[in-house]
């Protein structure tokens, strides 16, 4: 139990530290956040910082910055603080591929190696690119990894650039990381309704206005496109596991790391998606077994869950 709580809390130890763009909280690692979105490829040492959005940094804490800076280094250590997220990734990638397969006839001539060929995808709140990398390896024509935290984008870019396979995808822009908030990104009209697949995994519990966030996500989606959202449910169980257990009883993470109030019920996502013309096709619980660090799909949605919808 203790391990399980620790794992969950690790996974969700992402407090909003700064509010850069209107309603959206994002992770600040070093600098006041959010330069304007530019679709050109930025290089890791590109330090331009155009604060042309209302920047409000008074929630920024020094120790949090330190924490996130350390975290950013640890992102790609599969045995580090991000272990549960790393272990979750194969399962959710398979879920995404299988779900798309089940409702579309894929055009790929190599469905084993490159099942996502022909698809334009965006990973909103990509972090250091765990999901984006997998999607790109599976042959997606285009993957954009979008994140508002500069250090995450830098980390994502440098990791993919060092990878023997993904290096080429970065060079050819098949895999592109963009530092921006979704509001900013969507101001580029050419992006609206341009994606076959939108994924935003373990992000929505960190944003201030989920309804608005989902609306923007679905606007990026082509009619007939697929959207995947994963997050934590708002239930007594998730409260016990992530807030009471991890923070107050076991003191494994500082009090205030999580905001249970920001956790979201599947029904709320359903209705927000429905309002934006998207029909939910499937919802699965994700269960973490701390004894073998494995994740599995379950019926029970009371803690972690993933949801799949199609835009009409």
């Amino acid at each position, binding site marked *: 139990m203790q391990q399980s709580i620790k794992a969950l809390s690790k996974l969700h130890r992402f407090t909003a530290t700064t509010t850069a763009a209107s309603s959206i909280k994002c992770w600040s690692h070093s600098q006041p956040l959010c330069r304007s979105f530019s679709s050109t490829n930025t290089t890791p040492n590109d330090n331009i910082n155009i604060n042309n959005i209302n920047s409000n940094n008074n929630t920024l804490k020094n120790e949090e910055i330190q924490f996130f800076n350390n975290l950013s280094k640890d992102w790609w250590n599969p*045995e580090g603080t991000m272990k549960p997220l790393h*272990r979750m990734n*194969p*399962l959710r*990638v398979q879920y995404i591929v299988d779900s798309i397969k089940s409702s579309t006839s894929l055009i790929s001539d*190599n469905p084993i190696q490159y099942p996502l060929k022909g698809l334009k995808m965006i990973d909103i709140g990509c972090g250091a690119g765990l999901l984006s990398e997998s999607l790109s*390896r599976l042959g997606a024509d285009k993957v954009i990894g979008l994140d508002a935290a500069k250090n995450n984008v830098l980390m994502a870019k440098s990791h993919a650039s*060092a*990878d023997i396979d993904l290096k080429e995808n970065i060079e050819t822009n098949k895999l592109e990381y963009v530092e921006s908030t979704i509001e900013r990104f969507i101001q580029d009209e050419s992006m609206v309704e341009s994606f076959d697949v939108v994924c935003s995994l373990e992000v929505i519990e960190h944003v201030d206005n989920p309804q608005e966030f989902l609306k923007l996500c679905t606007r990026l989606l082509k009619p007939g496109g697929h959207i995947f959202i994963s997050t934590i449910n708002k239930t007594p169980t998730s409260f016990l596991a992530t807030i009471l257990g991890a923070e107050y009883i076991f003191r494994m993470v500082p009090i205030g790391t999580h905001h249970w109030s920001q956790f979201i019920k599947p029904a709320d996502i359903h209705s927000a998606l429905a309002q934006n013309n998207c029909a939910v096709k499937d919802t699965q619980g994700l269960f973490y077994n701390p004894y073998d*660090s494995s994740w599995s799909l379950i019926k029970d949605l009371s803690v972690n869950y993933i949801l799949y919808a199609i835009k009409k």
Partner: protein
Amino acid sequence: MIRNLIKFKYTAGTGGIGRSLSRYYCTNSGSNREQYDVVIVGGGLVGSAMACSLGSSPNTAHLKVALIEGAPIQSVQETIVSPVPDIRTISFNQQTIQLFKDIGAWDIIKSTNRVNPFTQVRVWDTSGFGGVHFGSSSNDIASMDTLEQEYMGYIIENKVVTASLLERAKSLPNITVRSPLSVQSLENYDINQQAASTSTAGSLPIVRLKDNSEISAKLIIGADGGNSVLKKQLGISSMGKSYNQKAVVCTLKLGVDQCDSLYQRFLTTGPIALLPLAGGYANIIWSTNNLHANYLLELDDESFLQQVKHSFLSGDKPSSTDFLGQLFNNYINLNPTNLSGNELYLPPIESLVSKRASFPLRTDHTFEYTHSRLCFIGDASHLVHPMAGQGVNLGMADVKSLSKKIGESVRSGYDIGDSMMLKTFEEERKTENMKMMLSIDTLFNIFNNNTLPMVAMRNFGMSFLNHITPLKKIIVDVSKGKKIF
């Protein structure tokens, strides 16, 4: 006893880490370096099954796989020219046979007519009066394990199965078998560096072969057996002990055409087993202390045969004239039982039809099976005492698990050498292997013991074994490939 192999960091001489490849698939001017997805080092039973498995599963059949075997390969036909079976035989359990079916090798193996199913195992010991018999036909077993299938397993010669697996591997389009060709070293690979977080970064490891050619690959699978050169070269540590025993092995002709029971007797010096083979032959695996083993190896054929019969039925004393022989007879006869061949259904032994050979026995377990882009399977990562007949069966379970994980890497958009994905293989197999190793060791200690309480317990256990005793369950489970812990 912990044997900590001397740790040394290996860096390649001329073509090592200093030479960084701008693109991993570029060919290095001067030497011809081939590019593969997977290199399997060692084409023994486990390595060749691994190749077949990667070639037969839809998720991995696109991977370019090289299998490198140091010894010359025999064709299946060549292995069955002589009607007399080879001295190295294996008892394969049901799970392994299922794997052979899944990877398309079982039909080839069966077509040799050198496979012998067994339906019963008869085990007894020397110091007491008890005996135990269990088999798939017995109700008692059926109730103990409802999963019981018709056969408990098959006894087949090592070389027949290896040749069949290699023939199957060669027929698969994505598999290249290279033999006889030894792997000399693994270069451009630093085990400490690989622990770094960005596991798939940098350039690929390079396998240097004896003919000085090079292969680079995303994943190196070490299936190079109990004396793994690869492990030694990389300074990978393991823990093990010597049993101070040898297995004396030979082939016998039986006085019957067919036998479907496996016999094993636990002598105070160690177990002797008779494994029935196709065509009315049988394999003897006699594990005993080094002194006794050397004695057995030096005897003339006739006396040796006497010793074998005697050891199974120690009621009738063989006429041993030399001092050492008498000593051992007395030792074995610690508590003569007067069992007769009839009671045990032991088939009549006709003659010795092979030379005798011996294998030193030890156990060894590698601490870490996997590193980034590197993974060990089979005897290379875990070596066990042969008395439970589980060595290969554990290796085959590795094969099943690893190829499933590699398939999962492909399906989830991971590099097949990704350290996390390989780690999940290790996590799955290590506990299982460890439990089995512990079970076998426990069994070894129960029987290889002459202190009174142990002997008493053993006698008690043996005589009630046919009913409910846990000891019987231990033996049944271990011999069927299950762990007792």
